[in-house]
């Protein structure tokens, strides 16, 4: 009997455990999931909490209850991984041996990395909706905000769900308009990127939508410090943006235990697995997926989901003594809320940037265009998350390799875009 240990029982770890349980006989493999708590939060739902549209309890379910029969769940804080000894130490001193290890421990927020951010004004006029506490605290402040300067600031390039701060901005604009105070609020979107988003076609479209909603875009702004008392953020090149209410996305690190585990990851805690097989170089028995990897792929739930299929296939192959043949292509898929009852869907991979068209084929959801259907898709996704993604069921048309049918690939050859980013 061999043991598979899965660290982190969230978006990525849960479907890996459930799919492995179906693929491997109970007599051959024991599957053990570890997490520090039993509260599985549907993170995309945090976006609605500041607007009073959702509450934390309605977004949270038991982690254990999402695991199939035959998967063990251990409640504990991972302290370190001993790659050579093939063992994981928990904070309470327990040691868990493994034959195969899957790290799905996500990213952690690192607000202390930005000077002044957690100083005066933090959680009073400077908030983040990226944590449960932050989103709940922001709900009170936003409800009382009826005039002044609202600044949404992205503090680093390496963040999970890079579309979420744009979504927040669109929803805030919509909420203020409905409340009848839009004319009393200036909204500014501050980003270190050179446009609204990373990739040229999507960036141009989203930049246009911000302008339509009267949101000022401040780009190429690498934030050095946030001064909550003075109501000001400052960049490394000395530019300043003033605010009355700031909503920030702090820098992210990998899981803290990675930096205490020699050979597992880099100094920020991200794990440099092979971008195709998702195995740790030199350790074919170790896999990582989701926000904890050091891959150039976006950090998103959809990515963790697509990667879970690849990890399971390759782990089962390795388990059976076959070569790991499944390949991850960097497929990412995000619904972006625009307010006004509309959303926009983007779908891309390592080689093909987000393009207009339809997903997953010519008859499907519109891509890169505001649509009511995509908004309904975003809302429907929550139910799919609990009932299909976490159990590890396949959803027709939604699979790991990115579909190209339905996409306007010809745009990639258009002279305005040829040669990549301009």
């Amino acid at each position, binding site marked *: 009997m061999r043991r598979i240990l899965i660290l982190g029982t969230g978006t990525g770890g849960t479907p890996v455990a459930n799919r492995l349980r179906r693929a491997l006989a109970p007599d051959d493999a024991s599957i053990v999931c570890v997490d520090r708590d039993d509260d599985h939060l549907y993170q995309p739902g945090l976006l609605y909490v500041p607007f009073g549209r959702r509450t934390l309890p309605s977004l949270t379910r038991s982690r254990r209850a999402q695991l199939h029969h035959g998967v063990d769940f251990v409640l504990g804080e991972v302290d370190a991984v001993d790659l050579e000894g093939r063992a994981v130490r928990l904070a309470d001193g327990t040691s868990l041996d493994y034959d195969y290890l899957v790290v799905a421990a996500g990213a952690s927020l690192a607000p202390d990395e930005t000077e002044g951010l957690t100083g005066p004004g933090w959680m009073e006029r400077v908030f983040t909706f990226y944590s449960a506490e932050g989103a709940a605290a922001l709900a009170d402040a936003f409800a009382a905000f009826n005039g002044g300067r609202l600044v949404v600031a992205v503090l*680093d390039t390496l963040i999970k769900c890079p579309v979420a701060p744009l979504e927040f901005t669109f929803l805030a604009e919509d909420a203020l308009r409905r409340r009848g105070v839009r004319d009393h609020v200036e909204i500014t979107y501050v980003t270190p990127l050179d446009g609204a988003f990373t990739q040229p076609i999507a960036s141009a479209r989203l930049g246009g939508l911000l302008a339509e909603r009267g949101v000022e875009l401040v780009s190429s702004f690498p934030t050095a410090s946030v001064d909550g008392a003075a109501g000001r953020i400052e960049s*490394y090149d000395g530019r300043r943006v003033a605010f009355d209410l700031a909503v920030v996305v702090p820098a992210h690190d990998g899981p803290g235990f990675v930096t205490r585990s020699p050979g597992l990851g*880099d*100094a*920020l805690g991200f794990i440099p697995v092979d971008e195709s097989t998702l195995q740790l170089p030199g350790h074919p028995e170790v896999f990582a997926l989701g926000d904890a990897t050091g891959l150039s792929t976006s950090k998103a739930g959809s990515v963790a989901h697509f990667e879970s299929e690849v990890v399971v296939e390759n782990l089962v192959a390795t388990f059976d003594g076959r070569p790991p043949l499944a390949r991850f292509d960097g497929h990412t898929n995000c619904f972006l809320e625009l307010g006004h009852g509309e959303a926009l869907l983007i779908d891309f991979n390592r080689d093909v940037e987000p393009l207009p068209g339809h997903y997953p084929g010519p008859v499907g959801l519109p891509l890169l265009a505001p649509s009511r259907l995509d908004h309904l898709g975003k809302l429907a996704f929550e139910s799919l998350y609990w009932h299909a993604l976490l159990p590890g069921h396949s959803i027709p048309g939604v699979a790991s390799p990115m579909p190209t049918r339905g996409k306007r690939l010809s745009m990639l050859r258009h002279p305005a875009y040829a040669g990549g*980013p301009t």
Partner: protein
Amino acid sequence: MTTSTLAGVAVERDAEGFLADPSLWSEAMATEIAREEGVELTPRHWEVVRFMRHAYETTGAGPNVRLLAKTSGVSVRELYALFPRGPAKTAAKIAGIPKPHGCI
């Protein structure tokens, strides 16, 4: 990709000016690329550029700015003072290595 001559050697470079083949790089090329970027290389710049080069040779990728600061001991603030147009990206370009992940 375009071909240009750096320090007397014909090299391929991508749209942003990164070398297509890091093995062709030399310190003389670094000085020329730095000049294009508006950077005059001081000994402190060289420390960072050599660090980037070394990181690439040992890990296969150049670090992004926070990882660079954490591993090199040069603070993010000083890195921006040295390479105002984006430290990891500019230092990687000067070091002749690919653009690090999570860089603009």
